[in-house]
């Protein structure tokens, strides 16, 4: 790398340094037949022409936080968007926008972390792009990933299937990612062992739809990222025109995360997750779904947290509180926690 230990503008200039960056850092980490060709487009052989396609950009600050980093996040986030949409993730693309001055060692760690996450999720990085911008034009590193996957036959998820009496499940504790990011931010001087829950969810979701009885009973899935569980439930209530009730005492919560949230004045229902999804399941199959979730490492704290109320009445999300009261869960304003993913 010419003795430099930082990304230079020339690394994005399309010349020798760009080639070095790709050859020495990117290709070895992501190595696969499609990427190694370094063509202008990847050719993919999909098993079905019923596909899901998604894209997301990652601007998390800081780049490294307890439990994950931007590389892992960029892979898991897109894998999860495909998985909750009822698709089997197949391949993803990765666009890197790097601010000049980023340390190459950090870059290497992030790329390797993305590669490890991709292997864990069973996807490959089929295409990529690298750009370097002047100091101040970006903040260290932004990543865009797009993902493609094939639809799972017989798995039909969507707002229109949600009906009164359906049961709402989550695969584990809420708010871990958002609070881990906060703990890692400069200026917030508190130490904790809070870890981001960033993880690929396609594995646990597969265990649910592989059960032939359960598959038709899964009506809706959504990963509870920005805006947390509150945002997902409000979106469901609004889009499916139903009311929703959840129970405070049923919400899986990590005590350290709760303590940090209370200290900083956050409502964990509004705090982001990167390894949690809400599943809405037909009532008769809820217990089975819960058992299957709990048997997977990413679902050991899974819980039934509530149920879907009547349609067309009040499209509100309500919380039955621990002390026997009730309150509304609103769509979060969205300003509280910038750049968490």
């Amino acid at each position, binding site marked *: 790398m010419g003795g430099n230990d930082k990304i230079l503008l020339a690394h994005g200039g399309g010349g020798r340094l760009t080639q070095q960056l790709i050859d020495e850092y990117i290709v070895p980490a992501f190595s696969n037949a499609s990427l190694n060709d370094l063509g202008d487009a990847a050719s993919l052989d999909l098993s079905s022409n019923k596909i899901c396609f998604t894209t997301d950009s990652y601007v998390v600050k800081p780049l490294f936080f307890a439990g994950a980093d931007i590389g892992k996040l960029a892979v898991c986030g897109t894998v999860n968007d495909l998985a909750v949409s009822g698709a089997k993730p197949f391949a993803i693309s990765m666009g890197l926008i790097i601010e000049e001055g980023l340390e190459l060692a950090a870059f290497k760690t992030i790329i390797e972390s993305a590669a490890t996450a991709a292997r864990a999720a069973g996807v490959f990085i089929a295409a990529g792009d690298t750009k370097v911008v002047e100091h101040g034009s970006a903040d260290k590193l932004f990543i865009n990933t797009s993902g493609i996957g094939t639809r799972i036959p017989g798995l039909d998820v969507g707002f229109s299937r949600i009906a009164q009496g359906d049961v709402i499940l989550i695969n584990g504790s809420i708010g871990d990612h958002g609070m881990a990011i906060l703990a890692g931010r400069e200026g917030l001087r508190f130490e904790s062992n809070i870890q981001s829950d960033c993880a690929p969810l396609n594995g646990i979701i597969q265990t649910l739809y592989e059960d032939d009885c359960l598959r038709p009973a899964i009506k809706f899935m959504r990963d509870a990222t920005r805006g947390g569980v509150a945002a997902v439930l409000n979106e469901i209530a609004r889009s499916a025109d139903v009311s929703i009730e959840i129970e405070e005492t049923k919400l899986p919560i990590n005590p350290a995360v709760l303590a940090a949230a209370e200290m900083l004045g956050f409502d964990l229902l509004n705090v982001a997750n990167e390894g949690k999804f809400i599943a809405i399941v037909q009532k008769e199959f809820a217990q089975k779904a819960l058992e299957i979730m709990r048997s997977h490492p990413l679902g050991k704290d899974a819980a039934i947290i509530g149920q879907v109320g009547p349609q067309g009445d009040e*499209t*509100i999300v309500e919380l039955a509180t*621990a002390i026997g*009261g009730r*309150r509304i869960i609103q769509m979060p304003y969205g300003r509280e926690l910038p750049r968490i993913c």
Partner: protein
Amino acid sequence: MLQRIWKAHNLMDLACKDLPCSLNIMEVCGTHTVSIFRNGIRPTLPANLRLLSGPGCPVCVTDQGYIENVLTLAGRDDIIIATYGDMIRVPSKNGSLEKRADNQNVKIVLSSMEALDIAKQNPSKTVVFVAVGFETTTPATAIAVRYAAAENIKNFCILSAHKTVVPAMEALLSSEKAKIDAFICPGHVSVIIGSDAYNPIVTKYKKPCVVAGFEPMQIIEGIAQICSQVAAHAPKVESMYHAVVTPQGNVKAKAIIDEMFEPADGVWRGIGVIKNSALVLRDKFSEFDAAKRFGLSDGHPEDMPGCHCGEVLCGLIDPPQCKLFATTCNPDNPIGPCMVSSEGACSAWFKYGRRKKRENKQ
């Protein structure tokens, strides 16, 4: 826990069942307001027991004149404004710190010492710390000023809007506009000032004063305790927050407040001037007083048109009675400070209160 809840509700029912009118309990502190809403406590109370949100949210009670002064200072190139987060969104006729086109010189801090660090890192600018809060945040401001004085950090000063809680409670009782029968006294403030500080309210006005923590159970038991006092016609000061609140409070914190600050008449949104309710730096430290350093006047401009935050803060109306509530005034576009602050009554009603379907679908 269920047994404790059942017992508390029994005490409430006993006290309220024979009352000829409603029992109005004011929770002074904004954190209590939020906890009450977050835990859905209101719907569980007897029908004739009313909770009133009080003037205990520091952002909310800060008057418009102070906001204008901060905005004036923020317009200067040689000044950096260091402020706690909520303050940047408080609107005025001249915008807010957040909405100014060029707000690069506005820094959000989590502590007064962070503001002091910014001063050290920017020797060519003057850092003005927006010193807002009750007795809970005042000691931290006092320490920053004491440190600045000891280290001779001349480019640091504070614009004090620090206030004391008890004079406001007395002002509300003596104005007789709001019918207040008892107070749930603030938890954090009481840690500093001690529960004895409320003795004058019991002696002079015969109103129960119960200090509560912020856990829902502590609040419910605090309300139950007030009900017992009302039923027995025996108002007194009680603390349900034994773990951290003592009768005399935090003696060290009180001493540093006293060392650096002196009482002065203060302007409160919605209430007006309350005698000896504000804290200003003592003359000895006046070089760190931004109001004196920059010759700021103590004007009292009017609140935003149509905004009823003042009445909300005095317990005269509930937020939904304000015509702007959840229409033009909402967390995305707050008109008054009670919608801005996370501890504001309007924000709590908006976030957790049930509204009509039309409003939910906005």
